[in-house]
């Protein structure tokens, strides 16, 4: 147990290093969440149009992203692109990778959201002379958000933990710092327990928020 007493004396420096990693974790999570949401919403809207070619392309994108591990995708972006001369830094690679991966998941989420809005709503909007885009903007999307927000929040919670994989492409986030500290101090037990605690401390409020949103969305829903 000397491992734990030794780590107790080093607590301040271990903790400050891990917490600065946690900031990068939050940064990667935040920006990939935004990117994924934009991609998901845009592609779901394109999919709602009748043109078949873009729909088929989006379908393939979604299946490929959902059928392969994020880690593989990150490695293709980081090591694969470098091979053909496109050298990206670890943090942008992580944001891009998680964003593109999450975009596929959220395309499905937004599609389900748009489909949940009754056809009568868009027909009524067209009757009022709204264009397809106007109807989307003012009638369909606001109503779809109700269905979309709970899974969106759950995706955010999952994403926060998934960003740990960014350590494999050397993005200086929480897991990366934890690993470096372990190679420096050999205090693997205490350091990984601390890292796990920080992850839990970050994801707990988020998952509470997700639960709250889910509850709110299910209240007062019209029966189908």
């Amino acid at each position, binding site marked *: 147990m000397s491992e734990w007493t030794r780590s107790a004396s080093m607590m301040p420096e271990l903790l400050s290093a891990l917490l600065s990693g946690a900031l990068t974790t939050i940064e990667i999570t935040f920006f990939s969440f935004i990117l994924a949401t934009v991609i998901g919403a845009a592609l779901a809207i394109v999919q709602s149009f009748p043109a078949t070619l873009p729909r088929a392309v989006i379908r393939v994108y979604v299946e490929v992203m959902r*059928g392969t591990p994020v880690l*593989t995708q990150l*490695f293709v972006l980081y090591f*694969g692109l470098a091979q053909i001369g496109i050298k990206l830094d670890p943090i942008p690679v992580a944001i891009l990778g998680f964003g593109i991966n999450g975009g596929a998941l959220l395309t499905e989420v937004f599609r389900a959201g748009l489909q949940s809005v009754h056809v009568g709503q868009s027909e009524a909007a067209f009757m009022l002379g709204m264009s397809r885009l106007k109807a989307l903007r003012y009638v369909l999307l606001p109503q779809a958000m109700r269905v979309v927000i709970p899974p969106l929040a759950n995706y955010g919670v999952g994403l926060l933990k998934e*960003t740990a994989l960014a350590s494999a492409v050397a993005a200086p986030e929480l897991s990366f710092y934890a690993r470096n500290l372990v190679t420096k101090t050999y205090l693997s037990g205490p350091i990984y327990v601390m890292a796990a605690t920080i*992850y839990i401390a970050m994801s707990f409020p988020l998952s509470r928020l997700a639960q709250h949103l889910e509850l709110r969305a299910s209240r007062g829903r019209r029966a189908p």
Partner: protein
Amino acid sequence: MIQLLGDWLPQLLQGVLWTLRLMVLSFALAAVLALPIALARLSANGMLRLLAHLYVELVRGMPSLTLLFLIYFGLPNLGITLRAIDAAVIGLGLNGAAYVSEIYRAGILAIDSGQREAAQMIGMRHRQVLRFVILPQAVRVVLAPLGNFAIALLKDTSVASLISAPEMMLQARDLTSEYFMPLQIYVAVGVMYLLMALPLASLVRFMESRLGAGLPKEKAV
């Protein structure tokens, strides 16, 4: 390129076998461990409920990577040294059990309370109600989400490469350090994951549509 693919294939296929083995073993561990956790979460005993809830919240609150690191790098200091592949099976199994227990819990709660009441009325004990009435019906509800969990798990096994368990991603890393062609190698690996995930996904869709139809097909005809 074709020639190179031929060179890589034996090692990649070996990776596929390890990946599948890792997935099957951790799936089995998760599926078995999850049942007592789900039952504890629904038990009348407050202490059991609390412990099970704590387990689920803690495990679901941390990345599976952190759990794998804890097991593989943390336990040796306590005198427990595991092979990377065993640490991966245990880590992914413990992690998965938290998720699967929620699937089981939802499945058990989905069974109409009238079923339980009727079973108690005809004199079944608590254990018998669970064994003969609730669980057999819950299996139906649970199958499709379990399938989705299996697909997620297949992809999650890639994380095991980071503790150097010899699955597909690790074989790919080996190959890249030998051939310096990460783009082609990782794309090839992506295709192999896809070839494993797509059949699973269509199986899940099939289960979903069948269970969604309510009645077994032969009765409808």
